[in-house]
């Protein structure tokens, strides 16, 4: 074996780190302990070739990482899987399905970032990032078989744990205050449109001078602004603003950046690079209630008060 002992030590250290941050998941702990044992035995040169094809594959993954000097903290999955597939095709005893699972495992163990390990259960959408550039449809063989577990009771029961709760239907006539509040909001909205028009004019590039594109961007921003308003005050996760598909998430993100540039919203991200992006409206929601918007009011006074 060409690989040096230090290189294996990198892999072991990396695995140990991953193990240390997943203290709430016993299954993953056990799994990683098994990988650590294999890597340690390889490091010492005491690994006995196993009858277990899975264990042999794990060993091959580590060997590949070490031989190709992949950085265990930052593995290029596409490059890695290409090389790994080339390697397993040569050895006839490897089942391709298992090989596929191994690539997945390699990603799980080596590419896994701490944030991701902790938040995995809550943030399935982050998985999309991992498969960037690859056709996710071809990855079906990696998906776990569907485990019904406790939900089976739901499937065969007549009595559902949820039911629509009965509340009052509250309607009231429109008051003057509502009309004035609506005017303030409409004014803000049209100000955004006007500011954007100015912004677009100022930064217009020759190849960007496309009226329909400009208008659609304006509409996009107005649309996203409307979505934001439906949430009321307080921080809003960007993912709650997405309606469907990648294209919409890009639209939302671009619109958010414009709105931030115009000073309408604050944007921040929890735990980069995979954490949720949040935004909060800076403009006071209800001009009639300024106590919590006093600070904003000062800086925005000229915008709020101007009525041409």
């Amino acid at each position, binding site marked *: 074996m060409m690989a040096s002992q230090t290189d294996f030590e990198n892999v072991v250290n990396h695995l140990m780190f991953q193990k240390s941050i997943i203290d709430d998941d016993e299954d993953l702990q056990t799994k990683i302990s098994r990988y650590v044992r294999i890597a340690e035995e390889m490091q010492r040169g005491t690994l006995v070739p196993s009858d277990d094809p899975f264990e042999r594959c794990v060993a091959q993954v580590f060997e590949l990482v070490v031989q190709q000097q992949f950085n265990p903290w930052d593995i290029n999955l596409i490059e890695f899987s290409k090389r790994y597939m080339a390697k397993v095709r040569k050895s006839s005893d490897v089942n391709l399905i298992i090989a596929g699972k191994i690539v997945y495992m390699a990603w799980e163990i080596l590419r896994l970032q701490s944030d991701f390990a902790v938040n995995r259960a809550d943030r399935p959408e982050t998985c999309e990032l991992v498969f960037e550039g690859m056709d996710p449809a071809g990855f079906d063989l990696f998906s776990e078989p569907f485990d019904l577990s406790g939900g089976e009771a739901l499937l065969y029961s007549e009595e559902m744990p949820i039911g629509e709760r*009965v*509340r*009052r*239907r*509250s*309607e*009231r*006539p*429109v*008051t*003057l205050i*509502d*009309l*004035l509040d*609506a*005017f*303030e*909001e*409409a*004014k803000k*909205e*049209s100000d955004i*449109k006007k500011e954007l028009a100015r912004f677009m004019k100022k930064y217009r590039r020759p190849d960007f001078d496309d009226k329909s594109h400009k208008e659609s961007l*304006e*509409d996009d921003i*107005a*649309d996203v602004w*409307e979505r934001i308003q439906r949430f009321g005050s307080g921080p809003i996760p960007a993912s709650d603003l997405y309606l469907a598909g990648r294209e919409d998430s890009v639209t939302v993100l671009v619109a958010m950046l414009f709105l931030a540039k115009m000073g309408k919203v604050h944007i921040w991200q929890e735990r980069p690079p995979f954490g949720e992006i949040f935004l909060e409206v800076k403009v006071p929601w209800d*001009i*009639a209630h*300024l106590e919590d918007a006093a600070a904003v*009011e000062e800086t925005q*006074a000229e915008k*709020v*008060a101007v*009525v041409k």
Partner: protein
Amino acid sequence: MKSERLVEAALFSAAGPVTVTELREASGLDVRTIRSALKNLTEEYNGSDRAIEIAKMGPRYAMQVKKEYSTPASRLAELSVPKDVLKTASLIAYYQPILQSKLSELLGSKVYGHVRTLDELGLIRCRPKKNSVQLTTTKKFIETFGIDARSRSEVKAWIEGELSRKNGRSKS
């Protein structure tokens, strides 16, 4: 399950004032029991310091907020004209007469639907002009919002006045 509580649940959830017959259909109780339950509930609610009362309007009963609490409470209820339609209405009132095309520049293409709704409610008037439609407020607009104005220009002036009063107040 006590009959008072069944009637209480039914009154609470009804979309409007209900008759004893409707309460009977909802609760499955007989009319006499319902009448007695209504009497007990009225004593329980109206005799206490609670913010909610049982009111009788002719043959109908309703659970409602006591008058002294109705103003603060109503802020959280849903408007009978949707808020985004109201936005369009307020801009029409302020800028009138305004072309529909101009309005859509200000607020986007959603105004076309809003204008139709407002026209149907009789709150605005649409008149063809310059390949577009000119919009103004109606007498019903003035009545609906209780604006102290006799003409379109007075509506406009009124809104301006209210806004500057409000902004003036907020700065102090």
